[in-house]
C-alpha cells in the first residue's frame, strides 16, 4: 500500500516537473527579445577616468552588444569563463587592484544582462563608464 502511494507520488512529481519545464520554455519563447535583422545605428559612449567622452556612432548588423564592442574595437576582447570581461575600453585599461571597472549602461540605466545577452536594436544608446569601487 505504501509502495503504491510512493509510486503515485513520484509519478505526480514527474508530471508536475515536466509541466513546469514546458511552462518555463513557453514563457521564455514568448518573452525573449528578437534581434532586429538588417543594419542598425547605435551609439556607444565611453566615459573615461578623467571624465572625457568618446562617442562611437556605429552602423552594424550585429545581433548583440558584445559583437559591436569587439567588432568595432571599442573594447579589447578579454574572454573569461563567464564571458567577455571588459578591462580596456577606448585604449584605457582599468586597474582591478584599485577596484576599477567598466560599467555598462543603456540610456543611463543599469543593464541586467551581459554584453553577449544584450540584443541591440536600431537607435540604442549605450555607455561604458570608468568606475571605481565595487
Amino acid at each position, binding site marked *: 500500500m505504501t509502495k503504491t502511494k510512493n509510486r503515485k507520488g*513520484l509519478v505526480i512529481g514527474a508530471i508536475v516537473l515536466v509541466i513546469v519545464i514546458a511552462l518555463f520554455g513557453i514563457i521564455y519563447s514568448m518573452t525573449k527579445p528578437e534581434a532586429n535583422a538588417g543594419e542598425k545605428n547605435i551609439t556607444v559612449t565611453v566615459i573615461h577616468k578623467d571624465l572625457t567622452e568618446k562617442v562611437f556612432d556605429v552602423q552594424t548588423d550585429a545581433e548583440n552588444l558584445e559583437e559591436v564592442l569587439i567588432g568595432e574595437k571599442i573594447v579589447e576582447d578579454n574572454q573569461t569563463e563567464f564571458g567577455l570581461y571588459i578591462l580596456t575600453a577606448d585604449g584605457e585599461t582599468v586597474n582591478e587592484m584599485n577596484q576599477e571597472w567598466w560599467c555598462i549602461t543603456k540610456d543611463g540605466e543599469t543593464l541586467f544582462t551581459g554584453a553577449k*545577452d544584450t540584443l541591440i536594436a536600431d537607435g540604442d544608446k549605450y555607455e561604458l563608464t570608468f568606475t571605481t569601487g565595487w
Partner: protein
Amino acid sequence: MALDICLMAILGVVVYVLQVALGFLPNIELVSLCVVLFTLVFGKRIIGILAVFILLEGLTFGFGTWWFMYLYLWPLLALVTYFFRRMDSSLGWAMLSGAFGLLFGALGSIVYFVIGGVGGGVAYFLSGIPYDITHCIGNFILMLLLYKKLRNLLEKLRDKIYM
C-alpha cells in the same frame, strides 16, 4: 565537537573544489548533489559545511549579488532535503534536485527584485530560463546516477568516523 568541526571544514572545502572544478560548465554542478547527500547523512552539520562553502566562494569570486543568493538558496535546499529525509528513491531525489535547478533562477531573482525593482528581477529571471532548464536536467541526471552509491559510501564513512 572537534571531530564535527574538522568534518564540516573538510566537506565544505570538498563542495567548494567540486564547484570550481566544474565551473567551466554552465549550470552543471555537483553542489546540489552534495548538499542533499550531506544533509541526509550528516544532518545538522550541513549548516557548518554550507558556511565554509559559501565563505570560500565569496573570498574567491568576490561578494557580489550572486553571493547573497547563495546565502539563502543552498540552506533552502538543505531545509527541503531535511523535510523529505525519509524518501529513499533515487528518482524522487533526482526530481527534487531537478526542480531546485529549475527554480534556481526564479529564487535567485529575489535579490534583483530588491536591488533593481520589478523590472530588474523579471529581466534576470527571464534571461536565465535556458540556463535553469540546463541546470534542471544536469541536476536530475547526476542525482539519478550517483545518489544510491554515494549515499551508501557516505553512510559507511560516517559510521567509521563516529563509531
